[in-house]
């Protein structure tokens, strides 16, 4: 079966990410919003099927035969001009047109069960820093979809919050206070640049390169921090004032224009992670309807 892209907007293909290669200078990459990505897979009963990460604009496709799809995000979804519920899995019939329009700047995830994407180093993710993985999706692109089984009629029992206004972080290893209110100046999969009137202490731009990680809050000499995101480089030479907790990393993709950075304890980070995993594992309700075609 063939899937054809009618309109692409700004869309990449992403999955869990590329694990085990950081020491070779290869970022983990993967879905910017791992929570929405995982929920979309859970709706289908799959784990790591590659997703379309729709960042901006209108995304539209059709398939040559029936397909099962799941969509998670803050978006309007239409099938042949009829509005359908987002955060569900459903069957798309042959030649029907599926249209997705994001409502805000948070990415929306569409998973088509059985989609075939060539993996690079174990992952179908596009790494925008190193240009690894599949090219950005464009109108006219076609994908093969293999017959498979997936859940139809699943839905999310918990409403997702797409307006993140707080990021929690563990302070250190270097000692610069970055807490308080910030505006986001620029967001990409590589990093989020922050701004505000009152500058923090200047960091160094010339440290001996050391290993970086997504969530690291770098403070360059300008005093204008950058929070590293999924495609950020594996090493860097800027001062790191803190690291956003892993339970909040998906919020980098959901940030509102004005938000705050709040330092927290390791205990807080641990509880937040347990809570998030509990929420995700209980988020999908499915009436056990299997869709096969």
């Amino acid at each position, binding site marked *: 079966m063939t899937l054809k892209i009618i309109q692409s907007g700004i869309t990449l293909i992403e999955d869990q990410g590329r694990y085990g*290669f*950081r*020491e*070779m*200078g*290869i970022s983990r990459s993967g879905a910017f919003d791992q929570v929405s990505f995982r929920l979309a897979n859970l709706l289908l009963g799959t784990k790591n099927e590659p997703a379309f990460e729709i960042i901006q604009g209108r995304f539209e496709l059709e398939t040559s035969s029936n397909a099962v799809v799941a969509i998670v995000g803050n978006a309007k979804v239409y099938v042949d001009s009829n509005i359908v519920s987002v955060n569900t899995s459903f069957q798309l019939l042959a030649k029907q047109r599926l249209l997705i329009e994001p409502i805000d700047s948070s990415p929306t995830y569409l998973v088509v069960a059985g989609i075939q994407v060539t993996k*690079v*180093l*174990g992952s179908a993710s596009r790494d925008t820093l*190193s240009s*690894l993985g599949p090219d950005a999706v464009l109108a006219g692109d076609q994908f093969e979809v293999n017959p498979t089984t997936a859940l139809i009629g699943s839905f999310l029992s918990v409403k997702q919050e797409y307006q993140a206004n707080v990021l929690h972080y*563990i302070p*250190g*290893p270097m000692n610069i206070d970055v807490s308080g209110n910030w505006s986001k100046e620029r967001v990409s999969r590589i990093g989020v640049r922050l701004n505000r009137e009152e500058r923090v202490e200047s960091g160094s731009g010339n440290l*001996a*390169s*050391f*290993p970086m*990680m997504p*969530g*690291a809050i770098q403070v360059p000499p300008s005093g204008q921090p950058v929070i590293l995101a999924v495609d950020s*480089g*594996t*090493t860097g030479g800027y001062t*790191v004032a803190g*690291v956003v*907790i*892993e339970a909040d990393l998906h919020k980098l993709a959901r940030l509102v224009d004005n938000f705050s950075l709040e330092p927290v304890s*390791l205990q807080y*980070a*641990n509880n937040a*992670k347990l809570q998030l995993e509990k929420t995700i594992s209980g988020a999908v309700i499915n009436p056990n309807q299997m869709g096969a075609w």
Partner: protein
Amino acid sequence: MRAQVSQYGERSVLIELEQVKPVSVIDSFRLLFPDAEVRSGLNTLVITFPEISDHTELVLSALSKVETVESSTEHRTFVIATEYSGEDLETVCQKLEITRAKLISFHTAITWQVALIGFAPGFPYLVPFDENQEEAKLLAQIPRLEVPRAKVPTGSVAIASGMSCVYPSSMPGGWNLIGSTEQVLFDVNNHENPALLQAGDLVRFEELKS
């Protein structure tokens, strides 16, 4: 072993080493913490543990058990055939007030060691194995370019700030280009080992006469 140890995010520890090279102790740390990911920086190590916790005490108490690898025979050695015809070769020679032949002899005389792979996939930061070597001290006088190039060709061999590197693919870069090699440093289709080099490996450059 002396080192500064600090918490780095919820699962990692940053170790700032004093007087020892990260690559000489990285294997020892990996043996001590088999479930953790150990990555090297130029004079640091970062250990990422599976679980969220303050691991600084654990790492501090392990420092006494760390063994150092000092002998060069314990590392893999790669020879990179290089044509010394880089765009910045002449400028570098002028700055150091040496001939082209002399510069080549310095660069090929140094045994380099991969301090870390970073910046881009497969990009090796090479430091002199013996930083007190006369040739190494001399080349260390060359800083990075004031204005980085928007595009450095694949296989470019370059030097800056006492280090050397080979660009595994075409990318922006601020190092002084002194030569080029046909050696492939990064191959995405090699799933087992996409990067030719790893931290700790030794590298020697050999002049390829055109």
